[in-house]
């Protein structure tokens, strides 16, 4: 049944479908990154395909290849009960030009998934309404799921916000100030009257 999906895609898009395979029963189509959104829209709107459930989106990094990053999308149709895996390759060795169209307008569920792929793999989604990090904090440097990100790499400490940045008085209390807390292990400051 699902061979139908691949046949329809090839018929409709021709050379934009670069490769197809059905290894272990998973129908897969590698599409040209430029037609990512057009293919997605077709899969969603064609009544015989009707892929309405956005299952998953992730990035797989192949640092020795150009284009380097593979964006992998899994879709399911609750009415036709078939699945497809859609892939596109973007970005050169240094992840320059790793950009692809956002499909949030087609499936609202892709919103968080695209943010996650941006956060973890560093692919930018054109037209995403709110592309910011989702699992990591804003100050995080790099994208951890790129193969070139060393697993033991450490991140710089994030400095405290200043009162100007926060726009309000922060009133931070120093931990273990000289006048409070437990005195043991700390040399008490000399009393002014002792001098």
């Amino acid at each position, binding site marked *: 049944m699902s061979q139908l999906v691949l046949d329809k895609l090839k018929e409709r898009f021709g050379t934009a479908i670069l490769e197809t395979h059905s*290894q*272990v029963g*998973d129908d*897969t189509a590698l599409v040209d990154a430029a037609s990512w959104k057009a293919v997605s829209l077709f899969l969603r709107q064609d009544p015989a395909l009707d892929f*309405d*459930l*956005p*299952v*998953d989106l*992730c990035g*797989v*990094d192949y640092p020795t290849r150009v284009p380097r990053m593979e964006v*992998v999308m*899994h879709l399911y149709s*609750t009415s036709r*009960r078939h*699945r497809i*895996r859609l892939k596109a390759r973007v970005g050169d060795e240094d992840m320059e030009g790793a950009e692809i169209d956002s499909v949030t307008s087609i*499936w*609202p*569920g*892709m*919103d*968080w*998934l695209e943010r*996650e792929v941006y956060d*973890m793999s560093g692919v930018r989604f054109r037209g995403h309404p709110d592309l910011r*990090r*989702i*699992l*990591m*904090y804003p100050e995080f440097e790099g994208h*951890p*799921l790129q*193969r070139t*990100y060393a*697993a033991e790499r450490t991140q710089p400490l994030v400095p405290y916000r200043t009162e100007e940045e926060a726009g309000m008085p922060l009133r931070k209390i120093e931990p273990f100030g000289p006048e409070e807390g437990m005195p043991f292990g700390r040399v008490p400051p000399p009393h002014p009257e002792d001098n």
Partner: protein
Amino acid sequence: MEPLDVELEAGELELPADPMHLNLGPSHPAMHGTVRIVLELSGETIVRSDVQIGYLHRGFEKMCERGTWTQVFPYVDRLNYISPMLNNVGYALAVEKLCGLVVPERCQWYRMALGELARLSDHLTCNGAMAMELGAFTPFLWFVKAREMIWDILEEETGARLTHSFGRIGGMASPPTQDFKGLCRAALPPILELVEEGERMLLKNRIFIDRLENVGAISGPDAVGLGWTGPCLRATGVAYDIRKVHPYLKYDEVDFDVPVGTKGDTLDRFLVRLGEIRQSKRILEQVLDRMPDTGPVNCDDPAVVLPDKLDVYTTIEATIQHFKLIMEGAKIPKGEVYSYTEGGNGELGYYLVSDGSGTPYRVRIRPPCFQITGGLSKILEGRMLSDIVPTFGSLNMIGGECDH
């Protein structure tokens, strides 16, 4: 004494018309899980909300790229830590799909039995915790008491209450114990009794129903578009249960129904989970009747399955095989696979890429919670502040799974 109603000028009486910003979380007593919701409130109505996750991110996918394929099992335990066995089985099935392995019949029944036990514990925890967050502490204790009985069985089987690490590629870590069937049969009636007791207490409570009904409702097509699966999707009336639609293991041979809701509100989600507890009990009874007491549990494939311990200590071939499987890991054929099972919260998928070596090239989990939590801000908009607690509780967001 001065009069209480002090006369004020008209200008002073005006309340600020700007929306108020409120931070809920990341650690809030009325919400389980570490999640932060930044709210924009107009009075008590939510105008806009931004759900922020990631507080429990532990780099699961990155860690998996460092060890062998088998060393992923302890990590998947810690994703959904309420039903770790379902994650174990899901991951094992994904690797086996890539290898083209099918485990022996006894193992398939065993995996189903353990999986349904884990599903029971998942639903019990979710419903109990949601009731507790609404102030009903006693049903929570009853549900947790029932869950404790399940964990006792799982402890007997695997040696660990929570993080079992019990799955293996091509089988399980050990065959079922002698008492497994007896323990399950003895535990099921008291568990169901506790559930019914708790259910009576909650569903005849006007306050509880009022706080759930028509709260956090979502339509079927909207939920599908958001990528929802599992009990949350079935509460909207879409009967998408992978055990029924795309059966794996032996689910096509057992008889069970898929409970669905109609309105997709918080009460429906609560009721669907209660219905599934009863269906899991039904499945479990059939599995216990049909699971053979003898026969192999592991595949007969020396390339992925560890040899018998006695052989390892007495023959050089088995010693070498054991050493290679532990040190280098089982060589999984080159390729990619997406395998999906019905987890506690919905479609639990694993997308694996293998380069033919003993270490995974990429392990991608598709946690059901992630997209369900992604839809939270949509169903919160326009609701009251106090509706957040039941709505969030009914989604059963599991931090470990959602934040990878």
